[in-house]
């Protein structure tokens, strides 16, 4: 299929439609408004339903209902709105309902700013809502990658019977790039028919998940099963891009838009003879632990965490794998302020040449 020039939010929305998403409920917030805007005209064209809810809480609850009825369902928002949706997302996970949730992140905390930032790493990977549930979280760096990850996300959500998160920053939401859109998939309602209203496809007994109240012994069993799921993600579902790790003395760790800017800086530094490599997590959860754990720390002199977040939020996940075998440096901007190719180059070079703390 020919490539087309598309805006990030719209490309992601179209990818979801092509994956068979037929229900979208959302509520306006910059910088993700183009997702619901696009869906408002696109959903009726494919026989789907678009609802602009009266609030974030209402819209995520509508997704809860639509998913329970077996429809591939999606909502999107930005940090503050994701906070409001968190209760509903916890309920989705509790009742084992698949859904796609896209966060086009902006500066925070609080109302923050409308400009791009990556300050929702903790929110998306650690504790999106109450109760200790975890969701797979994808972090694309290009529009093509965003389209492909969104397109596949419903398969993961239905496989695990758990919502899936896609974290984009405001840059990726607003940027226009060439994308190749995947084939349109007609939703298979037999496969997904009534996830919870009748029974789960692979279980003989009727599902009782729609009631959010479990007996304690069932809840414990369910939570233990989720623990196993988390382990299986780490074994089977990690996606990561590794660059020049075979000779790297300094390893940049960055995701999303930061990884693209840092990659440009890395290539320039390599031209100058600096042995710099990169680990780019594509799945933030499961985090690519092995990539960091298995580095040759006799050679690696430092890890450089590059993020649009101050303080750097991925730092702790990195530290757990580096285990004090090399110093970890942070570089980033925050609050909606961005860094560019030359600023990243200067900052990383300063770290490598010993000029930074």
């Amino acid at each position: 299929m020919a490539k087309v020039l598309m805006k990030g939010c719209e490309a992601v929305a179209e990818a979801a439609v092509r994956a068979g998403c037929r229900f979208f409920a959302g509520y306006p917030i910059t910088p993700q408004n183009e997702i619901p805007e696009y869906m408002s005209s696109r959903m009726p064209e494919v026989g789907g339903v678009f609802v602009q809810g009266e609030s974030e809480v209402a819209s995520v609850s509508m997704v809860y209902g639509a998913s329970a009825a077996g429809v591939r369902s999606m909502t999107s928002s930005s940090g503050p709105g994701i906070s409001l949706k968190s209760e509903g997302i916890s309920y989705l996970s509790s009742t084992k309902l698949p859904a796609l949730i896209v966060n086009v992140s902006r500066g925070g905390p609080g109302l923050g700013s409308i400009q791009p930032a990556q300050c929702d790493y903790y929110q998306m990977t650690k504790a999106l809502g109450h109760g200790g549930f975890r969701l797979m979280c994808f972090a694309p760096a290009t529009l093509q990658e965003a389209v492909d990850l969104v397109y596949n996300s419903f398969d993961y959500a239905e496989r695990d019977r758990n919502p899936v998160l896609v974290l984009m920053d405001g840059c990726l939401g607003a940027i226009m790039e060439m994308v190749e859109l995947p084939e349109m998939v007609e939703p298979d309602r037999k496969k997904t028919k009534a996830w919870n209203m009748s029974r789960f496809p692979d279980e003989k007994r009727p599902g009782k998940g729609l009631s959010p109240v479990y007996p304690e012994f069932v809840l414990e069993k369910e939570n233990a099963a989720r623990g196993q799921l988390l382990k299986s993600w780490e074994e089977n579902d990690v996606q990561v891009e590794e660059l020049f790790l075979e000779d790297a003395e300094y390893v940049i760790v960055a995701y999303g838009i930061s990884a693209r800017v840092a990659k440009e800086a890395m290539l320039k530094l390599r031209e100058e003879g600096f042995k710099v490599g990169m680990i780019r997590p594509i799945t933030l959860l499961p985090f690519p632990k092995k990539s960091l754990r298995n580095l040759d720390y006799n050679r690696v002199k430092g890890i450089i965490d590059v993020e649009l977040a101050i303080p750097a939020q991925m730092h702790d996940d990195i530290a757990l794998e580096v285990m004090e075998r090399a110093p970890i440096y942070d570089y980033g901007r925050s609050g909606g302020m961005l860094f560019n190719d030359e600023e990243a180059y200067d900052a990383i070079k300063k770290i490598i040449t010993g000029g930074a703390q």
Partner: protein
Amino acid sequence: MKKSTVFSGSGGQGIMSAGIMLAQAAAEIGKSVTYLPEYGPEQRGGSAKCTVIINDDEIISPLIKKCDNLVCLNEQSYKKFCGQLKEGGLLILNSNRVTSTVERTDIKVISLAVDDIAVELGNTKVANIIMLGALAGATGIISPDDLAESIKRKFASKKQAIVDLNLKALEKGLEAAKAVL
């Protein structure tokens, strides 16, 4: 060859539209492109800026410190972004609204009274297309023919008069750039 262009002005001047048209035209001839808009919460009157990068190969960072070409449609944007233009770069400014004198001597400058030209054409909205024509004429980052074809496709669903107006604006911009160079 990687070339970056920044369009800047105030909301309502067609800054984003001009950027998208350039990106679309380059995409249609098989180039890699990124278009990145930056604007505040205002619908009109606020600062508007977009960066278009065109390359033969993959574009890695869409966030750049310095640009090859800078188009300024008002005074505010000129003051804000003139420093981001590379040494030897091209500045195209709207002399109807940019009142400062250009002090940099290390850049090429094309100064056009685009608002006046647009009024002569009968529609102030085409100021951005005139700038686009001047950019194409002065830089060669996109051929005027490819740009014209892309504009025809963009306005295909509109009345012929709209298509003609935009093509005429493009032509005016090209002529103006040639006259200056």
